Every structure is written in structure tokens, then in C-alpha cells.
């Protein structure tokens, strides 16, 4: 076309490289140094830790040699854990479904309910399950009831948020069609939104169930029932091989649930 000199005039100038990434990395680094420092932070000293690692490995060694003779003592608490997880998942996910519809801008009947529901859900989600368990144990005394209640609150927080994000992303076309046919708001949600999110809903419910199984180990530590009680007890007695057995049982249980969950999800989609 033209001479080389004219062509090189057409080259665009190199853009100034964005400052965002280096700034982000620097920020993270500063945050880390501050968090790890002795004066302002938690006093994290990797070298001292490595020196002490010996103490931990002894205990770990015992944990990895589970004491199978302890199994009968774990049956009833395990069953209680499973019961708690089932009940809490059922109630929690049942409440989470309408809550998610209220919290999504696609299906919320009005701005007020949208904002109110989202705020409540944000607060409910902000508290960890163990905290709910601690409070409920103090309010209701020990046993599975505070544990179930704690898990229900925890479940609603997790499931409603996941579900409302799925609802936000549905295909709006069928909603328009239902509105055009004269359907009321609830009917539009029932016929056009629910079928689209149902597979996700089942997947989230199973996920929540799995979380509950994991969580019930922990809430037992504060007396809220389930296998956590046993765990806490055995740790207190320094019977680490019994602890190892309990952890093994939990691992297998969670593994089994994951298998079922994957199989179910495949059937549904």
C-alpha cells in the first residue's frame, strides 16, 4: 500500500498497563504482613511452628490408627447426627425455597419484600452454625433440639442465598409468556421459574444435608447432640485412636452421601 514509514505511523500506541493487579497484590501482601505480625496481628512465626511440629505428629499418628473396638459406642450418636441432619435439611430447605423467591429480583413481589428478605438473609448467613448452637444450648439446655434449631438457621442462610442466585439467572422468556397469558404472579413463579430451578434446588438440598453432617460433629462440642459429644469427650480423655475412628466414620458417611448425591443429580438433569 504505502511506504514503510507511513505504515508505522498507523500502529496504535501501547496502552498504559493497568494498575489494578499490582495494587491488588500489594494490598494482599500488606494485609498479610499486618495480620501475621506480632504487634498488630496474631504473631505467626513459621519457623517456630516447624520446630514444634514433632508434638503434633505424635497425636496424628494415633489418630491414623483408629480403634475399631470403640465402634459400638458411636452407633447411637451417629444415628442422632443423621437424624438431626435430615430434620434440619428438610425444614431448612423448605423455608429456603419461598425465601429465595422473595430474595430474588426476578420473582420478588415488590421492592420492600426484596430488600427486607435480603437483609434478614444476610444477617442469618453471617453467623456460623456453632454460634447458633452455643446460644441455643444456653437457651434450651443440651440435647439435639438446640442442634437442630442451629442447623436450620444455618441451612436457611446457605440454601436461600444459593437458590436466589440461581433464580436471578433464569431464562425470562417463559415468564413473559405466562404474564402474557394473564397468569397471577404466584402462578408465573410456579409454572415458569420453579421448573427451571428444580434440579439446582435438589442439588443444593443434598449439599446442605452434607454440610449438616459435617456440622453436627462440631456442634456436639457445645452439647448440641450427635457425634460431636463423643468426639469432644474422647479428645478430653486424650484417646486419640478413638477420635481417629470417629473421623473415619464421618469420612465414610460423607463419602457415601456424595456418591448418592452425584447419582441423583445425574438422573435429574
Amino acid at each position: 500500500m504505502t511506504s514503510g514509514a507511513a505504515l508505522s505511523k498507523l500502529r496504535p500506541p501501547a496502552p498504559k498497563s493497568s494498575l489494578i493487579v499490582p495494587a491488588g497484590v500489594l494490598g494482599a501482601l500488606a494485609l498479610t504482613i499486618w495480620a501475621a505480625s506480632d504487634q498488630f496481628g496474631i504473631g505467626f512465626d513459621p519457623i517456630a511452628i516447624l520446630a514444634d511440629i514433632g508434638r503434633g505428629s505424635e497425636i496424628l499418628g494415633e489418630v491414623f490408627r483408629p480403634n475399631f473396638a470403640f465402634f459400638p459406642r458411636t452407633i447411637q450418636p451417629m444415628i442422632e447426627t443423621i437424624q438431626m441432619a435430615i430434620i434440619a435439611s428438610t425444614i431448612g430447605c423448605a423455608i429456603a425455597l419461598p425465601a429465595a423467591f422473595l430474595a430474588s429480583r426476578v420473582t420478588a413481589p415488590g421492592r420492600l419484600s426484596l430488600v427486607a428478605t435480603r437483609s434478614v438473609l444476610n444477617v442469618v448467613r453471617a453467623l456460623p452454625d456453632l454460634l447458633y448452637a452455643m446460644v441455643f444450648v444456653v437457651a434450651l439446655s443440651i440435647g439435639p433440639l438446640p442442634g437442630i434449631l442451629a442447623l436450620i438457621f444455618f441451612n436457611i442462610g446457605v440454601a436461600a442465598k444459593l437458590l436466589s442466585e440461581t433464580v436471578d439467572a433464569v431464562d425470562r422468556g417463559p415468564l413473559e409468556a405466562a404474564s402474557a397469558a394473564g397468569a397471577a404472579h404466584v402462578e408465573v413463579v410456579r409454572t415458569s421459574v420453579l421448573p427451571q430451578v428444580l434440579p439446582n434446588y435438589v442439588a443444593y438440598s443434598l449439599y446442605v444435608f452434607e454440610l449438616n453432617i459435617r456440622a453436627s460433629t462440631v456442634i456436639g462440642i457445645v452439647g448440641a447432640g450427635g457425634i460431636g459429644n463423643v468426639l469432644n469427650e474422647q479428645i478430653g480423655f486424650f484417646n486419640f485412636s478413638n477420635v481417629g475412628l470417629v473421623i473415619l466414620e464421618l469420612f465414610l458417611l460423607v463419602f457415601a452421601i456424595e456418591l448418592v448425591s452425584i447419582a441423583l443429580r445425574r438422573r435429574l438433569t
Partner: protein
Amino acid sequence: MTASAALATLRPNAPSHAKRNLAILVAAAIVSWAFLTVDVRLDRLIDLPRQLGRMFGFMFLPPDWSYVEIAAPAMVASIQMAWIGTLIGAILSLPLGFFGAKNISSGPVSNVVRVLLNAIRAFPEIVLAIVVFVPIAGLGPVGGALAIGVHSIGTLGKLTAEAIESVDRGPIEAVRATGARSLQVQRWGVLPQVLPEIIAFWLYRFEINLRAAAVLGIVGAGGIGAVLSNTLAYRRFDKAGMAIIVVVLATIAVDYISGTIRRRIIEGTGAKRIVGDDLEQPELAESPT
């Protein structure tokens, strides 16, 4: 109409949903079993709302506002604990994620790594903290950070491996075709595709770890958990209420910041937000009736 049309008007039979109904029946049976056999006394259940109401009143009507002087620094310690823990988990999970991905490392290696990651995930942080890290690091947030870190390696490793496995083969092939070495293929073919997603996982994990850090204080890791445990044990409910408020505010704030950064990272990679493409015109204003 024609004869073939007459055939087409033969209505089909409604399909039977036997399998589905059976599954629902089984599920209902399991759920009913759980409800009926759990060890909860009915009279306690009836008393539930009143007890909860009382507790709510003790804690929040009103909370001990001055207690924020103690609760806030403790919350900061928990945030730091969560940050360090997440960092440990992130850094160590990245190589493990690569090793655990079936499309990057060989079959047996990736299987071993995945089982290892699942094993780590099986340990709740709190157990790790009690059993291993508090004995090592003594009482305080360091043990908590380590427990969180090690547990995070499991979850983050699994998510990283899955993200890497779902990567588009095309760019990898292209880099390999230039004669690049294996590590370079990872760096330029795989990493650019998964890095945004992985960083999003890290941030999400930080949000979750913050909650874990808040409770690890109960078993000796300090932070806001210790404050909560103490105030509840000594029945100082108004102070406990203040501590809870601090937790809620801090968690919501961290969630919001982390969530915003996550969204910017995911959207910035060119994943276009798909707006409903029904019309030529901008968004219709349909008032819900």
C-alpha cells in the same frame, strides 16, 4: 383433513412416574423416621418460642454497647486468623490442584492426590485445631490459622482440580504446538483460563473461613470465639449480644467486599452478562401486577 392427520390425532397415554414416585416415597419414609425417632421431648418443643424470646431479650434489648471495646479487637484477631489461614490454604492448594487434575497429571498420581484432598477435607477445622494445632502452637490464633489453613487445602485443592479439569483444550494444544515445555504449557495454556475462577474460590473460602475463625475461639484459638464462649458461660448475655452484633457486622462487611472483588474478577474476564435479548429496545418496564 387427510388420513394421515387422523392418525396423528391419536392421543398418547400419560407416562407412568413409577420410579419417581417410589423415590419420593422412600425419601418421605426416611424423613418421617428421623422426625419420629429423634430424642426431643414434645413439651420442650412447645416451650421453644418463649425460651428463644427470653434469650433474644437478654441479648439485644439492649446489648451492652460499651463491650464493643473488647469485642472489636477480638473480631479483628479472628479476621487476621482467617486471612492467614486462607493464604496458607491457597498457596498450598494450587500445586496440589494441578497434581490432582486428571488432564494435567497422570491417572494414578491424580487419583492419589484427590483421595488425599478428600481425607484432609474430612477433618473439620475444629478437630484439627483441638487435636493438632493447639498442642503445637499453644493457645491463640496461630493454632487457629493453621487449622483453617490445613482444612482449606482440602477444599480449595478439590475445587482447583475440578476447575482445571474443565478447562478448554484448545489453547493448551496451541501452546503445546509451539514446542513449549510442560511447565510453560501450564503457565500459558492452563493458568490464564482458570486463574480468575481460582481466585474467586480463594475469596469465597476467606468468607467461610471467617466464620470458622469466629468459632475456633471456643476451643482456645482466641478471637471473637473466646469472647462469645466466656460471655455465654458467665451468663453475661448483654455482652454476648454485643459480640454477636460485632460478628454480624464484620462478616457482612467482609462478605460484601469479597463478593464485589469476586464479581469484578469473573466479569472482567469477558464473560458477558447475557441480557434478555427479546427486543430491539432497551429494557421494558413491566410493572408486576
